[in-house]
């Protein structure tokens, strides 16, 4: 297939599937809380709805950075789609993209001029101290497989079995990272916690909010895709779909039954889990 067509197709799939998975997560949470909940398609409709709403640029916003930061968010996750499903490139680049995502959260919050955004901006720096080590547990993958290339990791699992079974602690740490990026009431997503309204997104309204939500759907799809590829191996499209539904439903369950933590507790819990994951996984490999 033509490379551009392949990229466009994968970005569209990432957006639609990511949006539906967020809808599913919300549905699972509602059912656990004995509510009917919104339809699964609701998050997708919500995203598209914002594109026909009026967009107001606050007087206090740092223009044009206030708009450009939303473009950067979309660009980095389009890059992730290219590195992941399209080319099966290096895992290290995906780590770099996640690091830039934290910088985008920080700058989106600070560019709006809103106190809620600025508080979220501070929390983005704070949470980076926990989320980057959690992503870095993927270094364990290198110790185990001898490669950081997604194609190499898939080939290793074809020969030796799923990494989920041989280094389960590393997989668990990555799940904690995915929880921190779930949209609805995550115990670890302190940058979008409801005590600061919508965090760094508070002042991005209308088209810009829809655009950010679109990027976040791609983010969710890609994080779950990385988890399935790195810990289970290359799956068929149906295999990926089933895996994504299971991971999203499990995370919806976790979000529904855990309290919203305050930022200190959230970050300390993540750092502790990252430490346990790194030390435990190295011990499992070498002892």
């Amino acid at each position, binding site marked *: 297939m033509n490379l551009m067509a392949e990229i466009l197709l994968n970005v569209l799939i990432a957006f639609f599937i990511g949006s539906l998975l967020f809808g599913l997560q919300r549905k699972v949470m509602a059912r656990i809380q004995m509510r009917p909940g919104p339809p699964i398609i609701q998050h997708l409709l919500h995203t598209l709805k914002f594109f026909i709403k009026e967009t107001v640029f606050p007087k206090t916003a740092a223009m044009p950075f206030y708009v450009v930061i939303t473009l950067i968010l979309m660009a980095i996750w389009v890059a992730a789609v290219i590195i992941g499903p399209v080319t099966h490139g290096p895992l290290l680049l995906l780590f770099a993209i996640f690091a830039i995502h934290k910088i985008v959260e920080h700058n989106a919050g600070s560019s709006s001029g809103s106190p809620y955004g600025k508080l979220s901006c501070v929390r983005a720096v704070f949470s980076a101290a926990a989320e980057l080590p959690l992503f870095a547990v993927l270094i364990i993958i290198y110790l185990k497989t001898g490669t950081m290339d997604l194609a190499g990791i898939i080939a290793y699992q074809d020969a030796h079995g799923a990494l989920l079974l041989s280094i389960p602690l590393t997989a668990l740490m990555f799940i904690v990272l995915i929880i921190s990026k779930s949209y609805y009431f995550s115990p670890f997503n302190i940058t979008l916690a409801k005590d600061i309204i919508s965090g760094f997104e508070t002042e991005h309204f209308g*088209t810009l909010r829809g655009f950010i939500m679109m990027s976040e759907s791609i983010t969710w799809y890609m994080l779950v895709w990385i988890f399935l590829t790195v810990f289970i191996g290359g799956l068929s499209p149906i295999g990926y779909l089933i895996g994504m539904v299971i991971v999203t439903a499990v995370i919806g369950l976790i979000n529904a039954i855990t309290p919203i933590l305050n930022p200190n507790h959230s970050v300390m819990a993540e750092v502790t889990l990252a430490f346990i994951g790194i030390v435990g996984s190295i011990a499992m490999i070498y002892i």
Partner: protein
Amino acid sequence: MDKLKGVSWIIFIISVFAIIYALIFNPADWIVYAISLVFIPLSVLSLGLISMAQGTKEDEEDKTKEPFIGY
């Protein structure tokens, strides 16, 4: 706001042409990556800025010129 719509239309048309160029002429991989990273986000955002609703002139003053009172 009309200036914004005008600029959005120009960016949208350029983005669509760039994407179509990559689809039809199949240039080198690095050019396709560059077009994807720059023009996919730009096309979506510019389309959004074109399709968004516009408030009335009277309301616009209140929405944009009012000082941010929550500060």
